[in-house]
């Protein structure tokens, strides 16, 4: 069974802290994505990666960075957490087949910044 695993289900951090959200997939997928989900706004793309060491900005990259040192792992970094980054964060992966393919999602990390 395919799996995208996010390391934490719930996180509580303080304003100004550096926060790491980790995601691992076991499907040997080339593509990995970070979305945030807020009530009524749907899923918004933060960053994505097509391959190891590669990263691309999504629609709302401000205040975030990412790291992809290994194919299976994609980390989202909040350099200095702020209260407006309180949200549900969803990691996803997909294969790169030359045509668009469906994303597989993790269960999400609910981050609260106090």
């Amino acid at each position, binding site marked *: 069974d395919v799996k995208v695993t996010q390391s934490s289900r719930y996180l509580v951090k303080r304003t100004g802290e550096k926060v790491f959200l980790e995601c691992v997939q076991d499907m040997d997928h080339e*593509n990995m994505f970070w*979305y945030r989900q807020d009530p009524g*706004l749907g*899923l918004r793309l933060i960053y994505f990666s097509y391959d190891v060491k590669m990263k691309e900005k999504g629609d709302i990259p401000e205040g975030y960075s990412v790291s992809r040192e290994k194919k299976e792992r994609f980390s989202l970094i909040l350099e200095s957490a702020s209260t407006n980054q309180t949200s549900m964060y969803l990691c*996803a992966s*997909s294969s790169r087949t030359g045509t*668009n393919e469906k994303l*597989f999602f*993790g*269960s999400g990390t609910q981050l609260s910044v106090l």
Partner: protein
Amino acid sequence: GESVGLHLPTLSVQEGDNSIINCAYSNSASDYFIWYKQESGKGPQFIIDIRSNMDKRQGQRVTVLLNKTVKHLSLQIAATQPGDSAVYFCAESFYNTDKLIFGTGTRLQVFP
């Protein structure tokens, strides 16, 4: 621009009835469309997808219809069950970008 809306549209149906969830997509160049189901406390789960060279695709109890003329996508669920209660998202992708652009979602409530 970013849509603003704190309240999801909600569709309430009786168990056993058919459900139709609609979605308007934004880009006429989009060539891949997908529906996800998200239950409370879980990540989105794939339901069904369709490419722009088709106008209909069927799965188990679900059918997706694509009308490219009016940029409209719909998900039909036959014989809706309580386990179908969830938020449903449509998403589009274009130019083989591998990125999905999501709609804001529709909540489906199934009552006995």
